[in-house]
């Protein structure tokens, strides 16, 4: 089954695109939660926008020489330019959607500022997409034999309750660590409060959904550092979807702890406000957690 999936060009293309999305979010998310980048979008003029798009594309072409987002066969400059255009488009889509979801981008801003916001935020997202092959080193080319072996190993491990518990603890620890690494830099910032003031309840739900989808993509779809290794590591978090949800809850708990640690908001705020702050910090934290789970 694995080999048919791999030889299907549509599947491998989807895999490549999702790898670019993963890299874009991993690298871009700290700058998504930075007001100075939003403000920069208010002040840039068309010349600046055109230049930053051009520079981003140039940077991506250079990055593609060493990294890129596709699993490379051989280097050819024409392919490299085409790949870089795709990476830039992925970055632009990711940046615009996530700016919209956190309520920074809205229609009242006016065309010029909307485009300004998108081009400024697309730079970090683009760099992330451009190095995603390194962030997200795939090991999907192993044969059928290995996956069968893995399945047996998995079954065996599932039988032993201790192996299960160990796997779960390793996963949770790694998720928590990853969440702390990305979340720590964001937790004390005012951006959390600003985003909270702009988001409706529907926006919060959308943010939860986005956090889940992106961390699912990072861990399970983009064949990150070693997907086969992930399959080996079987904890109580069995099913990928269950694992994603559980890890998200770990990321939320870590977020709440960091918010309390830095006293980002006063203790006199209502619990509902605190819930909102936790969900908002939970977005970068869950992405960090997804990356952390891959490291184990």
């Amino acid at each position, binding site marked *: 089954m694995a080999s048919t999936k791999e030889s299907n060009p549509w599947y491998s*293309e989807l895999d490549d695109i999702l790898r670019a999305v993963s890299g874009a979010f991993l690298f871009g998310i700290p700058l998504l939660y930075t007001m100075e980048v939003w403000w920069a979008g208010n002040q840039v003029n*068309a010349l600046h926008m055109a230049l930053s798009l051009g520079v981003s594309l140039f940077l991506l072409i250079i990055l593609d020489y060493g990294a890129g987002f596709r699993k490379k066969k051989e280097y050819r400059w024409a392919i490299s330019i085409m790949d870089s255009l795709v990476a*830039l488009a992925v970055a*632009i889509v990711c940046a615009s959607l996530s700016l919209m979801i956190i309520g920074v981008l809205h229609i009242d801003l006016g065309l010029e500022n909307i485009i300004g916001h998108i*081009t400024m935020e697309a730079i970090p997202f683009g760099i992330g997409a451009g190095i995603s092959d390194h962030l997200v080193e795939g090991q999907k080319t192993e044969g059928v034999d290995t996956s069968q072996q893995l399945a047996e190993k998995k079954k065996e491990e599932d039988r032993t309750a201790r192996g299960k518990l160990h796997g779960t603890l390793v996963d949770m620890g790694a998720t928590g660590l990853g969440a702390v690494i990305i979340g720590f830099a964001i937790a004390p910032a005012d951006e959390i409060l600003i985003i909270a003031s702009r988001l409706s309840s529907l926006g919060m739900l959308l943010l939860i959904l986005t956090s889940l989808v992106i961390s699912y993509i990072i861990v399970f779809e983009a064949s990150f550092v070693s997907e086969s290794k992930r399959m080996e590591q079987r904890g109580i978090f069995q099913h990928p979807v269950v694992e994603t949800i559980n890890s998200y809850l770990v990321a939320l708990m870590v977020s709440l702890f960091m918010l309390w640690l830095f006293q980002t908001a006063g203790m006199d705020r209502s619990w509902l406000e605190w819930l909102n702050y936790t969900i908002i910090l939970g977005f970068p934290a869950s992405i960090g957690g997804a990356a952390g789970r891959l490291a184990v």
Partner: protein
Amino acid sequence: MNPPEGPEPGYSRAEWVSLGVSLVILGLLVGVVIFVWLSPVDRPARFEVRQGQTRVEGHSYYVDFTIENKGDQTGERVKVAGFIIVDSGREEASTTFDYVPGRSEEQGVLIFEHEPAGLVIRVISYQIP
């Protein structure tokens, strides 16, 4: 063991499709940037304030308003004030917007103690970024 399945040289159809979609996205963005470039962008900020609904909360009157910057340049620290004439003289309320970018809108609320009949809301100052 299978030989390593290196994808055949060149672009697969799937890759062409994603390149095509990407070019459409980039083309749209570049198109808008060029449009913005060609349209005049040096008209100074010019504000228009529209009064919205009034609601009563406790003993106060909350007046919604929308401020629109009809110019091209961004106004920074835009101060909006409203006043009403009451028996004891004048009641004033004001608020400041960090940014009102050109050709865009922001919303705010002014709060008064007395019923805001004959309310006048206007922009009284802003900074040029």
